């Protein structure tokens, strides 16, 4: 089990925290928290056998957040001196004083037990920052060269994002947490052209909370996935265009995770339901008055929120408000039963989680204020449930959807449209080749209401993304979504070429 990186623990976070919190208290802040972060980020990108991008960026800094005169005050800094820690604490209090004039509802936060000097490290074997860039680049170069051996492949790219995140949190109540997470986001893409068309085919392996062992070890069969991509692309380029209409869909986890993210994950963020994101990310149709009564989907639908699943991208020990990670139900037997919370919302809705936050506060950098961000929101499989093949076997006239591609959903999380890496026609329970130009479009509750069956645990996979955006100023978060292959009846399919008026 890796330990907290000594080059992080050597930084002056504890001393600056002590100085800043003492200053905030001296100035009268009722609550104050201090967060110090170092985020190491490396992005390597290869195009046609050449390393094109090697972006190596560290972000180090700290922030002080206070509740003062009933208002939030937040300030951040990058100069790692006692004087600056004191100045940032003073700025946070001064900002709260400006904010107090415009805050009509005083800010209060839910209580949380004190965790005195605890630490937590995510589950991984090899820190990607311990692997030399040339070695990592060589792997990606090899991937693109292998893809380009396919006759249909004109160009190929491969990339991997790597993050090592260290967070130290301390508050006036006495909680002190030191944490470390590692995550990876690999992908490879083959591009090609037919007579009057061009297209691409991408790996569907998800980003994960793992180390470099994900790229090399026995966790994921990269050879198998890379070997099949050129042929899959060749088939897609020659495939017939889809006849628009209504189809039954069998959706693989590599596509369904994103539909879960957009239509369940964001819709059950309580800050959205309360209107905090109305000017930006949007609100939610799943308003608070519908808790316990909204039929979100069919009765096979069981959705959980968690910050605990091993290798999950939103998994952590303690959130950015010092709340211990938890898991809970969001949709049970198709009914809306829960939301994602931070401490202010935990205080506001004490009936939801026993008056406590369920640990969804997150800030993407030392310079940003924590807000409620998404837990790992996952669809549970049916114990002894069917295999993917069995689900396909139940469909007369339909499509099997693999891999995510284009995505869009409205600001209240009703109307969505998704495409995929590949759509296979299902005829009389059998796959009968790819089709092109398909997109599925539905309204959230209609779609989940049309879910006839979820697959068994053998079909369950953890997907996810590095690039979930929310808040003003904008913050980016990583999150995982697990799901089984699932069967949906009678869903609207568009032909995207016809949509463009051609």
């Amino acid at each position: 089990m890796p330990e907290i990186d000594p080059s992080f623990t050597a930084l002056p976070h504890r001393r600056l925290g002590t100085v800043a919190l003492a200053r905030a208290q001296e100035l009268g802040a009722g609550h104050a928290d201090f967060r110090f972060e170092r985020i190491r980020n490396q992005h390597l990108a290869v195009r046609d056998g050449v390393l094109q991008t090697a972006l190596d960026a560290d972000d180090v800094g700290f922030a002080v957040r206070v509740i003062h005169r009933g208002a939030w005050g937040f300030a951040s800094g990058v100069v790692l001196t006692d004087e600056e820690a004191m100045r940032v604490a003073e700025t946070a209090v001064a900002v709260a004083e400006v904010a107090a004039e415009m805050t009509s509802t005083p800010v209060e936060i839910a209580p949380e037990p004190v965790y005195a000097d605890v630490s937590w490290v995510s589950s991984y074997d090899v820190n990607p920052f311990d692997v030399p860039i040339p070695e990592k680049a060589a792997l990606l170069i090899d991937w693109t060269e292998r893809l380009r051996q396919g006759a249909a492949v004109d160009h190929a790219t491969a990339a991997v994002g790597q993050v090592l995140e260290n967070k130290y949190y301390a508050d006036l109540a006495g909680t002190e947490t030191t944490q470390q997470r590692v995550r990876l986001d690999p992908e490879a893409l083959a591009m090609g052209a037919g007579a009057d068309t061009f297209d691409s085919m991408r790996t569907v392996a998800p980003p994960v909370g793992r180390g470099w062992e994900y790229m090399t070890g026995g966790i994921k069969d990269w050879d198998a996935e890379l070997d099949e991509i050129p042929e899959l692309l060749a088939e897609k380029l020659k495939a017939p265009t889809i006849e628009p209409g209504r189809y039954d869909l069998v959706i693989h986890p590599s596509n369904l995770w994103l539909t879960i993210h957009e239509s369940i994950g964001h819709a059950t963020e309580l800050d959205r339901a309360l209107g905090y994101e109305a000017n930006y990310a949007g609100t939610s149709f799943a308003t608070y008055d519908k808790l316990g009564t909204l039929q979100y989907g069919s009765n096979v639908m069981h959705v959980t929120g968690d910050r605990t699943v091993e290798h999950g991208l939103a998994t952590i020990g303690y959130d950015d408000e010092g709340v211990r990670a938890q898991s809970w139900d969001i949709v049970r037997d198709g009914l809306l039963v829960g939301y994602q919370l931070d401490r202010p919302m935990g205080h506001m809705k004490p009936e939801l989680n026993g008056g406590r936050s369920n640990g969804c506060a997150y800030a993407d950098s030392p310079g940003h204020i924590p807000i409620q961000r998404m837990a790992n929101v996952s669809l549970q499989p049916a114990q002894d449930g069917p295999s993917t093949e069995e689900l396909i076997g139940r469909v007369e006239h339909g499509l099997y959807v693999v891999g995510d591609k284009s995505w869009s959903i409205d600001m209240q999380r009703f109307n969505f449209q998704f495409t995929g890496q590949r759509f296979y026609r299902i005829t009389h329970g059998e796959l009968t080749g790819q089709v092109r130009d398909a997109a599925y479009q539905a309204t959230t509750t209609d779609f989940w209401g049309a879910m006839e069956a979820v697959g068994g645990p053998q079909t369950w996979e953890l997907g996810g993304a590095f690039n979930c955006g929310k808040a003003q100023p904008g913050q980016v978060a990583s999150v995982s979504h697990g799901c089984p292959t699932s069967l949906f009846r009678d869903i609207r399919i568009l032909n995207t070429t016809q949509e463009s008026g051609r």
Partner: protein
Amino acid sequence: MTQHSPGHGVSPQSLVEHALAASMGDDCVVIVTESTSANLRWANNTLTTNGVMHGLHVSIVSFVKQAGGVSVGSVTGSATTQAEVNELVHAADAAARSAAPAEDANDLVGERTTPDWADESVATGIEVYDDVAPALGEAFGRAGAAGRVLYGFVDHQVTTTYVGSTTGLRLRHVQPTGHFACTGKTADLTNSAWVGRATRDFTDVDPLAADEELARRLEWGRRRVDLEAGRYDTILPPTAVADVMIYAYWKADARSAWEGQSVYSRRPTGTRIGEDIARPEVTLSSDPAYDGLQCAPFVVASASSNVTSVFDNGLEVAPTDWVRRGRLSALRQTRHTAEMTKQPVTPVVDNLVLDVAGGTGSLQDLVAHTERGLLLTCLWYIREVDPQTLLLTGLTRDGVYLVEGGEITAAVNNFRWNESPVDLLRRFSHASGTVPTFSREWGDDFFSRTAMPALRIPDFNMSSVSPAQ
């Protein structure tokens, strides 16, 4: 804006000089960006979050000549001391020594100094809202009393960028970026409106006037008409035109076009430069000196990619027509892709202007001359569906209005649309004059500086109804 920045003992310029002296590479480029920002966010007629931030980032690009070419190492970190800069320089030098030769290798740009190189960084702070904050508080009160609910955000950032090189670059640029945006809803949350604008200094932002405009728009929504999906005569205001034109600009990189992967490709290898892709009245351009939209007049690149090259740091960014009188005339280039595509070097510019020759009057004039159609407020959640046509999908948001006999007569439900911005530039029937505008979708975090006309599209494709309110 104030002429001082939060405490640090070492000036950005001396960090640049220190890094250049410390590098053991054959050449070195150092980029220092110092940013300060202040923001206020509100919802339900009360402030929710806020912040005052300071960031200082140092990027070191080390160049090492070796057999077969020049290899590059690039490292960025939040360094504020010479010791921290030393660590970055060592890491960049080591990365360069172990790297393979770069495909985009080129001569570094030679000696150039901006006259204000030695000036201090420019900073902003919470005081930029000294006038705006009390007015906001007053707007919350007014709105609440009148049954309106306000949600919004103000953000002001000032970034000072320094680029130095062993070849004699000493370039400095100060970039103020700010915006005000506010959503208003009726108390029952069934009716929604939005206003937003970019600003460089907040002297031109009036929250009370914005609240009045929201009240006017919510009043339009007192009558509600439900319409089916279909193709409608639709007026896109400048902000919505910016939403889709920014996407068309992002996808206009020369290499993707050259290698056959974009709407600007002429297959099998080649670009559509020289082809008529839009109506002949259309010019889409960028100019770093455009009044009110001023942006960096030189290239800043801390890492190479498909659309950037570290070798181009300091290269002059000139006014560029991407589409001139309807003809595709340039794509976003590095010197490397310019050589590949045999085209002039036209680096990306951080602003975008659409002009339609003969387009005059305002959005209101377009409305007044429309017999029956839709007026949009803004667009949302825009994503590429098909790169071949640059088909985009997205939603209408915060106000779709029915125009009848030149007047706004009702609010209509929202729609999901599927459209290509390149097609829209061929199909529009009317255009207003060009005005500065702020993209709702991309303005916050990605692309703030635009000037656009309103466009009327006779057959805009509303693919399905969105029940979102």
